[in-house]
């Protein structure tokens, strides 16, 4: 019984650590539809994430998008990619990142990175 209890306790700890780790590094998906950033089908203007979280940008339009940010918080250029494909970026610093499509500058959203 004692060994079983220990195993159960260890399993619980491992599970808790896994859950904890999952919470610490979440993944989000933002789609681009009709030249608009959307999350779960709704227009998104600001997404709040934690340090270490990853955001995937999926192109849902029939033309190419090129997602980038020149912000100090995260400076990146995902390049141009076609419909149905996604590219990801991990946010590793607290702050505000302004996200745009280089090809279609009307597309704009912010990612707020917190601890």
């Amino acid at each position: 019984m004692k060994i079983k209890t220990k195993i159960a306790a260890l399993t619980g700890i491992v599970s808790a650590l896994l859950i904890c780790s999952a919470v610490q590094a979440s993944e989000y998906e933002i789609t681009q539809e009709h030249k608009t950033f959307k999350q779960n089908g709704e227009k998104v203007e600001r997404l709040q994430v934690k340090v270490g979280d990853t955001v995937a940008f999926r192109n849902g339009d029939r033309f190419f998008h090129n997602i980038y940010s020149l912000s100090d918080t995260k400076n990146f250029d995902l390049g141009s990619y076609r419909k149905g494909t996604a590219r990801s970026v991990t946010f590793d610093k607290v702050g505000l990142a302004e996200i745009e499509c280089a090809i279609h500058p009307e597309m704009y959203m912010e990612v707020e990175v917190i601890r």
Partner: protein
Amino acid sequence: MKCLKNMRGSGRMVLTALGCAALVVLSANAKVDNDPYLRPEMVPAPADNAPNEARVELGKALFFDPRLSGSKWISCATCHNPALGWSDGLPKGIGEGMKELGRATPTILNTAYNKLQMWDGRFRSLEEQALGPIQANVEMHKDMKALIAELKKISGYSEMFEKAYPGEGVSEKTLAKAIASFERTVVSTESAFDRWRMGDDHAVADEVKRGFSLFEGKANCSRCHQGFNFVDDGFHNIGLKGNTDQGRFAKVPVKVLKGAFKTPTLRDIELTAPYMHNGAYKTLEEVVDHYSRGGDMKEGLDPNIEALNLSKQEKSDLVAFMKSLTGKPMDITVPHLPN
């Protein structure tokens, strides 16, 4: 089908009394109202510069007035000539001292609907844009302070500014607002393509219909040329031979923007040759050939562009479609300038 056009406004109420037949027309009209290929009747304007007759009249006078340039010889209309599709018919514009500029003069037609202005999108509004060329050394080369002082001395202008912008005075800001107000009146008129979209099947030839199918399909044109104004408010490197102009990249240093320029409108396209930001092509046939071979410079080429290998017939259909986008030029009278 003319009635459909008229129904786009208040005429809709009249038809509701005409019974079932009218209902059929009404449903067609709903389709027309939602058609992204037809120009919205409302022209957008900022809240602090709602258009009115006095503002447009002042803006028109300023637009045609060469005293806005350092040489007192170049007006906005010198390059944006209404007789030449609100452009100049040249591969590249001509500025101060008759020197050629780096880029073609874009038409001001439908610029009211643009989200960004200029080939590289460096201005966000027509108000911002209006002040750029006046002060640019290579274009109109006029000192703004000197211009405002000179305009204040012209009593006719003082009266017009007061009528248009009561209490705001003659200033850089009111000058820009007035010119922008006039430019917002320069919009495309109904073309054969529009009449076809509104239900008149005989408004265009079959080649136009085939061309439009190609435009939206095999030829991929609508990846960039979208909606009634055939723009995406976006920036693309279209692979023009010998182009060294960095375009949008100078403003936004992201790789894909090297040599990228704003998608121009296709409205009244027959009137605005030559084409492209550097006036590279004299005819629409040359333009279609360019896209059919997938551009010339492959380095930095926008990924939306790929070789199409269009047949002779397909090219001809595409040109016919583009020509169907030209409407009757708006009537314009040259203003008497105030003294």
